[in-house]
């Protein structure tokens, strides 16, 4: 019998390894359709990882938005612009150096991060204890995530909804032009 902590560790390792593989495959794929599908798989793996870490709400969002809707939208966009990657010319030295430096910087930065999952992290000692203790009692809702999002942070969620709404308006303005016959500069 394997202890529970080890199972979580094994799952984390396998999922992260698969994530790495998928990410490399996305970069290497020449056909953009394949890249898109791989990105969908990437999102699904991320969703599984969130679930393992106990963030079920985020997992649902990632699975529905990342793996579902955005894949369809990117595929639709690809059918507009073509799915063959252009051969890029020029040297790769400068970008490689920049990427190396950024990676090293990010890796260095991780040493300054609070310990993973520790209860004494800044995120856990500010308002979270209050929400966890009083959320269900003050809002009557057992799911703390919903009570925080909808009630304590209702104003933020309002802003988020308006952002989504504004995005739709922008897309309608950009792409929703009615095409007329004889309209020569319709972008096609």
């Amino acid at each position: 019998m394997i202890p529970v902590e080890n199972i979580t560790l094994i799952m984390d390792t396998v999922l992260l390894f698969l994530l790495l593989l998928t990410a490399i495959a996305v970069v290497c794929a020449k056909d953009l359709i394949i890249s898109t599908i791989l990105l969908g798989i990437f999102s699904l793996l991320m969703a599984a990882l969130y679930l393992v870490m106990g963030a079920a709400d985020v997992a649902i969002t990632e699975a529905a938005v990342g793996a579902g809707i955005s894949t369809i939208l990117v595929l639709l966009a690809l059918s507009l612009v073509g799915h063959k990657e252009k051969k890029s010319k020029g040297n790769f030295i400068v970008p490689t150096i920049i990427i190396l430096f950024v990676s090293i910087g990010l890796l260095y930065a991780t040493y300054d991060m609070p310990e993973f999952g520790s209860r004494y992290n800044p995120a856990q000692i500010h308002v979270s204890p209050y929400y966890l203790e009083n959320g269900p009692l003050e809002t009557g809702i057992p799911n703390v995530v919903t009570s925080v999002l909808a009630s304590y942070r209702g104003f933020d969620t309002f802003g988020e909804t308006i952002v989504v709404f504004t995005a739709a308006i922008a897309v309608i303005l950009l792409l929703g032009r009615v095409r007329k016959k004889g309209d020569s500069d319709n972008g096609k």
Partner: protein
Amino acid sequence: MENDILLRTVVKFLTPFIFMFGLYVQFHGDYSPGGGFQAGVICAAAFIAHALINGLSGLDKVVSEKTARTIACLGVLLYGGTGVYAMHNCGNFLDYSVLTHSRCDEVASSRKIVTNKGADNINKTSEEEKKALEDYKNKLLDSYSANKENSKIVEIKDIDAVHGQHIGILLIEAGVGLTVFSVMILVFYMFANRVG
């Protein structure tokens, strides 16, 4: 894709289940993971799957572009309207606690010198109402009895506020769901119209 019998059959079979799951995520978001945003996306996915099989004309018969635009606006209005209604009941913007039980009497009486009559009015609750409140309180406490042992505070102080919170969260989640759902459909419409 429209002529593939396998895809047609599978999608036709799955669409209602995806939609039902979306509604579940919407209305069960208080108790399990989920909420308006996720529900809107899942429901939109059901409709987009329908569109992929039956073409844009198929989607147009269910949700036309104009309907989607209207629903998107209605969702934001529902959210904002809930906030404004809270202000109407003498609370802050989006303060759901006052949604079902207006705080205006309290505010008015605290401004005036509290006369005996006013104080009586505030405290006047019939026995039946008290009993109903007590029942509701117990029911709420049972619904998260798992938390009960860990929590230091077991007493719900303001049952009216909790009732208002319930209604408010339901309304604004519905608003978010409607907006996200129709925005996804609209974005799909825009892209698909271009593809032709």
